[in-house]
């Protein structure tokens, strides 16, 4: 347990310092969200309707930003080999890294979304649903993103392939996440949050295995 | 004949669908066969040299 927490803490510290990507993700999130009204016009009714979807998509993209370095940074300087040799199972290593990513990126994005929802004139209840859906759904983003990061860790420009691999797999998160906001705004409860929770749960449980397998095959050079 | 071509007025959709399908599958067949023959020739040349 201590090894797990130590790794998590280390990754978290690396992520939040300058150049670690956490602050970058927040800035990117805000920038993209600002761009959308510029693109679709300032009709607040329209913006309120699309708020859930726009904020969800922007959050996913922002979370993916620094993901390619999740394993690659340690791989390049050799620390991944050492980490793999430690008594901590590689699956737990992967889980620790995904958790650190969520804490450094997903969680702050969720918090910021409450503020950015104001740009879209989203109602208080809608914003509540948005924040809750992001809270529940961003772990899935870190989990599936972690698989992509592990698969692409040996590719130098893997940052370009990672979104291509990961985004289709995250379609359910975007659908259920924004669907939750719709359900609240439209007044029709639609169970989206339950599906989202199930999806996140399955992703966080299974992803470490896939990511560990990917790390192993890359280390077995 | 013109009835066949017009396809009840939907000809503008039916025929392109068949054309694209034929083109895509035809290209797939052609490229697959070409790659196979190329590989066969290359291997034969290498084996001929030895």
């Amino acid at each position, binding site marked *: 347990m201590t090894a797990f927490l130590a790794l998590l803490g280390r990754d978290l510290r690396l992520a939040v310092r300058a150049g670690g990507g956490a602050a970058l993700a927040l800035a990117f999130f805000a920038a993209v969200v600002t761009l959308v009204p510029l693109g679709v016009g300032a009709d607040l009714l329209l913006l309120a309707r699309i708020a859930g979807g726009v904020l969800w998509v922007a959050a996913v993209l922002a979370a993916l930003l620094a993901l390619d370095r999740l394993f690659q940074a340690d791989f390049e300087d050799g620390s991944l080999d050492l980490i793999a040799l430690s008594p901590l199972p590689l699956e737990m290593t992967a889980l620790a890294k995904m958790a650190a990513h969520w804490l450094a990126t997903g969680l702050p994005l969720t918090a910021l979304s409450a503020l950015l929802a104001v740009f879209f004139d989203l109602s208080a209840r809608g914003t509540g649903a948005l924040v809750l859906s992001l809270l529940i759904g961003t772990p899935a983003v870190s989990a*599936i993103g972690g*698989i992509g990061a592990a*698969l*692409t860790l*040996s*590719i130098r*420009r*893997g940052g370009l*392939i990672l979104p*291509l*691999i990961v*985004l*289709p*797999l995250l*379609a*359910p998160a975007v*659908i*259920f996440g924004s*669907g939750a906001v*719709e359900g609240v705004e439209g007044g029709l409860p*639609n169970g989206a949050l339950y*599906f989202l929770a199930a*999806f996140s749960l*399955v992703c966080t449980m*299974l992803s470490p295995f*896939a990511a560990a*397998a*990917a790390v192993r*095959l*890359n280390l077995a*050079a | 004949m013109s009835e*066949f071509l017009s*396809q*009840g*007025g*939907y*000809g503008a*959709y*039916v025929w*392109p*669908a*068949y054309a*694209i*399908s034929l083109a*895509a*599958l035809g290209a*797939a*067949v052609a490229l*697959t*066969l070409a*790659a*196979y023959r190329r*590989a*066969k020739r*290359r*291997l034969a040349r*290498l*084996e001929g*040299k*030895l």
Partner: protein
Amino acid sequence: MFELANPKRFMQFSGALLPWLAGAAALALLAGLVLGFRAPPDYQQGDTVRIMFLHVPAAWTAMMAYGLLALASIVGLVNRHPLADVAAKTAAPLGAVFTALGLVTGSLWGRPMWGAWWVWDGRLTSFLLLLFLYLGYIALGQAIEDESRAARACAILAIVGAVNLPIIEFSVDWWTTLHQGESILRKGGPLIAAVFLWPLFLMALGYTLLFFSLWLIRIRTEILERRARSLMLSGAP
């Protein structure tokens, strides 16, 4: 079946099987086309029903190809069969072509009925995501330089995709009922009349056999290319 993992036996086996496969494919396609055009226009869809004879077989083949790709990936990871990797790698571009074809024909099929070139119909949307799964798979395979590493990475991606695909389809389905009510373009449409079933079946059979023929040829090509490469490495002049 595992004896086929031996490349030489595979070449013999596939070489013997291919003429029959290709011939059967050609026959099925021909018969399907003839019956397809001789069928009367559908009560609701008119003559656009003939596009269904192209769309549904392409869609079916694309999904079958992904299943085969995932299966080959599992065999490659678990049993380390050398041919399993080749089988998976060669299936992907073919599957992508059938998926793209399914999307284009689906769009052409829907346009007269829906009035738009693309509506976010549940099945077509899932299909679009499937195309991205294929493209991601192919991109990953090309980006990793080491061949066996690439094969194993792609295998993991294929399995993750295969596990996720039902979830994706479920969520897309849910999403369409949320926004549009019932899915407009259901499996094969609302008709089940026998006069349409036969051409549909024959075209689907033809597409499937065509896929297998092309797949076998591509695996053979890959085997020959690897042989050539190993000859070059082992000391050609």
